[in-house]
């Protein structure tokens, strides 16, 4: 009996490998395995899309997904995530090195499998690793300046000198970015094996973007008071900024590289601006064309796209940013500002040239309000691109008229501006504090506002009919979930998504990581910068300023904006034309916040350049603080017409701040104290 039992038991296997482990052989030796490796690399890329919130950093969290809310002035959100881009809760540090290890491992291990693939495919896979590495170094350099250049898979444990590295200088870091993008562009094919990964032109386009950043930083650090540079304490390496004798050469070189890369993409003829439903002179068609382009995967403008697919892999943009009436359960996360729409064509202005006219006086604080039969009349001539980016009060979205109304004014016309002080120092005055609202100090009640939606709406009796004081979408002064600025985001929202399908994790429109317009803008900006620096065209036969002018005009034409009256010149004014165009075209694409950093226009002294065009920063800021305005429609019951008030956004009172040190994020302090080599930023 015992013998039987013994024999039963002796066959128990003790070498039982774990069931879900795979090896390099499984992944690198064949194309199916490579798709898994690629999926791994790309899933960890520091893309900034619907699953990136500047406040949180690279942690792929799409909760509260909103666009343009990080103090760029594009939009406002009521939540705590609406703050200046001065750092990230999860600094992009350890995750970067994790991904670098995966990329470096591929570079090291793939040669063993070179025989398994045609040369072009082998090169492509290698090229992907370089592309990933280039992009990671690029995104780290934007944040930190110089970073440790880990270009091999580090053996651990190992010799101390080989397992930890100091930060390279900022210059070396950008040179590495350049070298890796060049290597990637050389190895990558035009048509990648896996759609969704980078091809040759994606590498070039991102190279242009990165080099624009590098060239700008080298140049505009000099505009920051006291020069923005410094030496690491532990290593003596110039971890941020550039030496006095090197910044000019660096800047010129990198702008040249940006220009070359952008031009190579342009010259390939593979891409063009999306104009599928565009028609000359047809504002409606132009507007609709720019609404359609975000979801159209066949767009000739798309260079690299991050796709989603409901229900497998999703985001929640529509759940967080739709107008209040579609709340599910959140909404109104991205409300564009007045300051932002002032960048666009098609409005009457005051004498300063940019403030949109709402009264018949000299400024929005004087004269009487202009009256409109319907709010949309105010926007009758607005640039079609703006209408594609922003939902105006009274415009249609998802087949519903989006009613946005701050309140009802029952006094007689003409109507003087509601507030007594429209300057920055009066920004805390709120409509609900006005005597004509509260009826205090002997004033008669003439202003109706609603603290909240539904049963909390104040009801105004007009000719025996009832009217809610605030519009269906707000703004409601006690509820930040309603509209905040009088405007809503339209860009990237999925108009075709049925209302009942709006929800967290239910959106799957793609995010365009790189598109042709970006390349045109990079070409234009580097062209003007090179011209300003007196550098001749790095591309044989190019008239750089002509290229830039055409690029801007192409974008403007597609946008339905006014074309340039003449050619761009080697001047700061022309540079600002390009910058402003970039701010407009690439709004809500997570790009502006980087542009503002590289132009070094966020701090107090340089903030006049914040809007791309020159504006007096006193108008919207004081010291390190700044804030943005809304455009608030009111209904005048006496006249049956609408008027607009321009005031600092008054529902959630967002105020932003920025200091010079914030141009370089701090290195996570734990990393500094843990390592013998890693330096903190010298100015922190």
């Amino acid at each position: 009996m015992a013998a039987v039992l013994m024999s039963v038991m002796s066959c128990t296997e003790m070498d039982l490998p774990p069931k879900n482990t795979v090896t390099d052989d499984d992944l690198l030796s064949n194309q199916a395995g490579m798709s898994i490796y690629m999926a791994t690399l790309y899933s960890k890329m520091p893309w900034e899309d619907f699953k990136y919130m500047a406040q949180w950093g690279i942690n792929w969290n799409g909760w509260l997904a909103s666009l343009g809310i990080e103090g760029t002035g594009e939009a406002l959100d009521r939540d705590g995530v609406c703050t200046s881009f001065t750092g990230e809760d999860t600094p992009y540090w350890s995750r970067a090195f994790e991904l670098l290890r995966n990329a470096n491992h591929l570079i090291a291990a793939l040669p063993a499998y070179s025989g398994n693939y045609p040369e072009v495919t082998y090169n492509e896979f290698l090229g992907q690793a370089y592309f990933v590495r280039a992009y990671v170094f690029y995104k780290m350099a934007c944040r930190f300046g110089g970073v440790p250049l880990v270009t091999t898979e580090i053996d651990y444990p190992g010799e101390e000198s080989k397992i930890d590295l100091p930060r390279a200088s900022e210059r070396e870091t950008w040179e590495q970015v350049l070298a890796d993008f060049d290597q990637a562009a050389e190895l990558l094919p035009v048509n990648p094996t896996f759609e969704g990964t980078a091809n040759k032109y994606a590498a070039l386009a991102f190279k242009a973007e990165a080099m624009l950043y590098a060239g700008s930083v080298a140049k505009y650090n000099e505009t920051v008071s006291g020069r923005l540079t410094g030496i690491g304490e532990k290593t003596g390496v110039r971890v941020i900024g550039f030496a006095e004798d090197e910044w000019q050469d660096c800047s010129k070189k990198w702008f040249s590289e940006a220009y070359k890369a952008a031009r190579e993409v342009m010259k390939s003829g593979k891409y063009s601006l999306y104009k599928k439903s565009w028609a000359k002179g047809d504002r409606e068609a132009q507007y609709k064309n720019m609404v359609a382009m975000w979801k159209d995967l066949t767009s000739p403008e798309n260079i690299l796209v991050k796709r989603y697919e409901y229900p497998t892999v999703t985001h929640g943009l529509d759940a967080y940013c739709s107008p209040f009436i579609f709340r599910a359960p959140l909404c109104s996360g991205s409300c564009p500002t007045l300051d932002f729409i002032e960048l666009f064509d098609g409005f009457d202005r005051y004498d300063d040239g940019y403030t949109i006219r709402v009264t018949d006086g000299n400024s929005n604080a004087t004269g009487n309000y202009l009256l409109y039969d319907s709010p949309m009349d105010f926007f009758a001539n607005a640039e079609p691109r703006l209408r594609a980016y922003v939902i105006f009060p009274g415009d249609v979205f998802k087949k519903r008229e989006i009613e946005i109304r701050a309140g009802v004014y029952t006094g007689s016309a003409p109507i003087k501006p509601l507030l007594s002080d429209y300057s920055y120092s009066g920004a805390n005055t709120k409509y609900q504090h006005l005597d004509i609202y509260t009826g205090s100090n002997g004033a008669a009640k003439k202003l109706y506002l609603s603290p909240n939606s539904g049963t909390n709406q104040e009801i105004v009796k007009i000719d025996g009919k009832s009217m809610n004081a605030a519009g269906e979408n707000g703004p409601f002064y006690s509820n930040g979930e309603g509209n905040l600025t009088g405007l809503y985001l339209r860009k990237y929202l999925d108009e075709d998504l049925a209302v009942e399908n709006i929800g967290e994790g239910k959106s799957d429109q793609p995010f365009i990581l790189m598109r042709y317009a970006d390349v045109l803008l990079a070409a234009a900006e580097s062209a003007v910068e090179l011209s300003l620096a007196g550098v001749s065209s790095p591309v044989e036969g190019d008239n750089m300023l002509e290229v830039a002018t055409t690029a801007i005009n192409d974008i403007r034409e597609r946008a339905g904006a006014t074309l340039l009256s003449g050619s761009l010149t080697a001047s700061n004014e022309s540079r600002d034309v390009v910058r402003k165009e970039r701010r407009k075209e690439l709004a809500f694409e997570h790009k502006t916040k980087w542009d503002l950093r590289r132009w070094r226009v966020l701090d107090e002294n340089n903030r006049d350049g914040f809007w791309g065009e020159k504006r007096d920063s006193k108008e919207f800021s004081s010291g390190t603080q700044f804030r943005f305005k809304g455009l608030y429609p009111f209904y005048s019951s006496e006249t049956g017409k609408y008027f607009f008030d321009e005031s600092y956004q008054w529902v959630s009172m967002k105020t932003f701040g920025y200091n010079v040190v914030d141009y370089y994020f701090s290195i996570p302090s734990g990393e500094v104290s843990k390592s013998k080599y890693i330096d903190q930023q010298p100015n922190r």
Partner: protein
Amino acid sequence: MKSVFSTILTTLCLFLAGVLSYAQNTISVTGTVKDGSGAPVIGASVMQKGATVGTATDLDGKYNVSVPSNAILEFSCIGMTTQEVNVNGRTVINVVLTDDSNFLESVVVVGYGTQKRGSLTGAVAGINSGELMKTKTENPQNMLTGRVPGVRVWQTSAEPGTYSANMDIRGLGSPLVVIDGVPRTVSDFQRLTPEDIENVSVLKDASAAIYGVRGANGVILVSTKQGQAGKSKVSYNGSYTIQTPSKMPELMNAFDAMTIYNEKSMNSMTGGNIVYGEEAFEAFRNGTRRETDWNSLIIAKTAPQTQHDISISGGSEKVQYYVSMGYIYQEGFFKSRDLNYNKYNFRANLTAEIVKGLKFNMNISGLQDKRHTPYTSSVDIIRNYWKQGVLYPAYADPENTMLNYEGLDLEQNTVAMMTSDISGYRTYEQKNITVSPSIEYDFGTAWKPLEGLKIKGMFSYDYRQDDNEAFRKEYYLYAQNKVTGDYEQKLFADSSPNNLRKDNYSKWQTLSQVLLNYNREFAGKHDVGATLGWEVQKRRGSNYFAYGDLAFGSPYFTALSSDNQVVGMDASSGQFYELGYEALIGRLNYSFDDRYLVEAQFRYDGSSKFARGHQWGFFPSVSAGWRISQEPFFKNCAALNFINQLKVRASYGELGDDSGLNYEWVTGYIYPATSGNAENGYYNQYAPGYMLNGSFVFGVNNQPLPNTNITWYTSKTFNVGVDFEAWNGMLGVSFDYFHRKRTGLFGQRSSDVPTIVGASPSKENVNSDSHMGLELQLTHKNRIGEFTYGITGIATVTRQKYLTYVENGGYGNSYDKWRHDNMNNRYQGVQFGYTANGRFTSWEDIWSYGIYHESSTLPGDYKYEDWNGDGEINDLDEHPYAFDQTPWMNYSLAFDFGWKGIDLSILFQGSALGSMAYREPLYSIWGSNGGGTLKQYLDRWHPSDPSADPYSPQTDWVSGYYGYTGHYPSENSSFNRVSTAYLRLKSVELGYTFPTINWAKDLNLRVFFNAYNPLTFTKVRFVDPEHPDSDLGRMYPLNKTYTFGLNLSF
């Protein structure tokens, strides 16, 4: 051991004697069996020793048996000392049986065997069925609470079917649970029918070393009942229980809520304002606006529970059986009644002697249970309704037919969330079957020199299948348009689309075991015991799941729409695994003259979790005891005669634990990579793959850097104890000191591996900690006439100290390390914060207070201790002031009384030296628009005139527990972190056993009433002190239960 041995010997002698004296006359013997008090003993067994002839005493204690005139009669009854009487031709034999108060002779189950309690050398505690059953609850784990020294059980919630309770031995972590000799899980123990449990033994020290690599946290050995030879006995136990929540915060009414929100808004230095004016109050008064009493809409005052089980046992000398069936139904407190649980158990334990000396045993058991919950978890339901506040109606219309969304937090209507008919459900169904045949042969029956040698072979097969289902159902909510008066409906976004998910998990394990046992006494003084065994175990788990959107709201896959259909697998190591274990085990016992006891054990243990060459480990232990009371000098001293037992004992052993490991030695990747919230497309998490060529391709997870040297951690445990018993149980004292040091705990030197390496460091055996503690048990048993009683007091203190924790490092300076490194050389759970220094009681107090305070300080605000004396309160004043939720000390006091048919048992139980902090809804008003207004916040400092400016020194104040609304204490202070010390009446049971009736002498009927958790003394407000602060206080409550039941047997 001695008695076992002598029994065998005597049996053999008698057997021979029986053969020789075959010709003896058979005579009829009658008599009465009484107990010490003179009362008849009913049902006592009267057997001819060495034969199958026997009977039981009747209601009057009388018996009648036919035996040979020279036979020996054996009188026995559970709980009484067995007596043997030579018949010697007598026809009337009256016997008085004494109480078996000397439980030293009782047998305790230990690892791979049994031992007499008196000869134990390790720290082993035992509890039998009778004691266990004095606490009435559905979970046997909770029945252990306060009954076994060193065993800590704390219940965290009473949510039906979740069995939310933590259990450890001496604070050592999750113990190994062995049921009927097979390592099983805590979950298996929780689901046993309490009535089926014969006894529970707890191995607390080195005595667990025989379980080797899984024994480091101690072992709980559970034995189920076996049949007894004799008349078939049918037992039925049935009970009905009324549960009530043990502390459940409630929401205020609308008027109070508005007052509180007005206060919150008035609490502004720069001028506050009233949010809810008189018109709002009036609107609620005159019915224009309707409030919601969520408390009564959601939470029922009581919830029912019933429990029934029936068992039949009996058998002949050759075959014995115990079969049983059990059923439990428990309902939760949600008014929808959609939170509920049921469980069916069955068991058949059979023993047969096939040929002489060869015994066959078969244990079969099975269970099926099902937990049903609303689609939304109970935590979220409670969280949701607390956050709603009461200012918006649950129903849009006054007739209460349309559920409202307007004004509700995230537009979630809690009534819809808790109702399965509206929003769907989740069910968790488990089926479990265990089959375990064994065979045992006694060599002594074949050849006398081999007497005492037995071999036992056992095989067991356990299979468990879990079927979980989640059905999300679309629903609409309504709101009235104030302008038109119409009701507008809106699809509740999170409920859409209809979706069904099913998960199937199957797990099985087999265990094969061969044990050689030897027990023999030589020369009347040398007692030798030895065990040698070989054990092999295999465990395997697999699973799959499928989900899809549904075309319409029917909870079957037949309704699948074409969207969103996914089939997948949970590849985590807990659900998808194949593991092998092998072990050689051995034990040697020797006792000299019952005075000097030594024991040595080992286990040579192999686990497939480790790399080849690192799979095997050796885990030895030794222990020794000295029964001073058995010494001749002791026995001969009349003055010491009152002492029944005085024993000192000590043990030391090395044990291991491999539970935290998962193939850290393997190089490679884990495919597929996983991440959270897959069911919602990972929208708020890392997506573990990428869209390539238009479809989602999973990536891999990088393994940490491999470590082929990884192995189990080692736990060295030492125990020394004293057992004392005197006056035949009038006083019993047992005291233990223990110390355990664990080295080689798994740690990752994340602070050593440079971040730029880009890989997480491998797990290594680098961390360490220690536990030390004291255990004391005092017992007193007595009988005064017909009144019997017993008192047991237990107290245990355990301190855990972290010694090394390599993850922590890189501190800037020593202050930084002191302040933030809670894991190196520090006691468990040290909490830093501010300590209280009273409250500001008046404006004068505020003005004259010497330490800097905010200009917004109001009467009622909190004063903190200026710990470093620098004249201001800042984070440098934070210092260690409390420990965490896990209490260091546990104690209990149990009373048992018996008088005639009445029995009463009372258990007080408590803990001390722990703390909890109030979080989120329990810390402050948590919500907006009148939400989060739990009643407790009314007890606050506030101006007697609600419209008065709180910042005006003229304002007259009313004092309260909280500060003025809007001013809360620092979360990190002793104002907010309170001691969880409590003393509670854990269980009280009153029973009455009816006298036996003449026409049904075997009928035994007892009725009882039991209250569980009825009374608690604690400083914890609003929630139960056992309720953890983990779910931010929003967890389903504990319950108090009141049970009526009966035990019937015949």
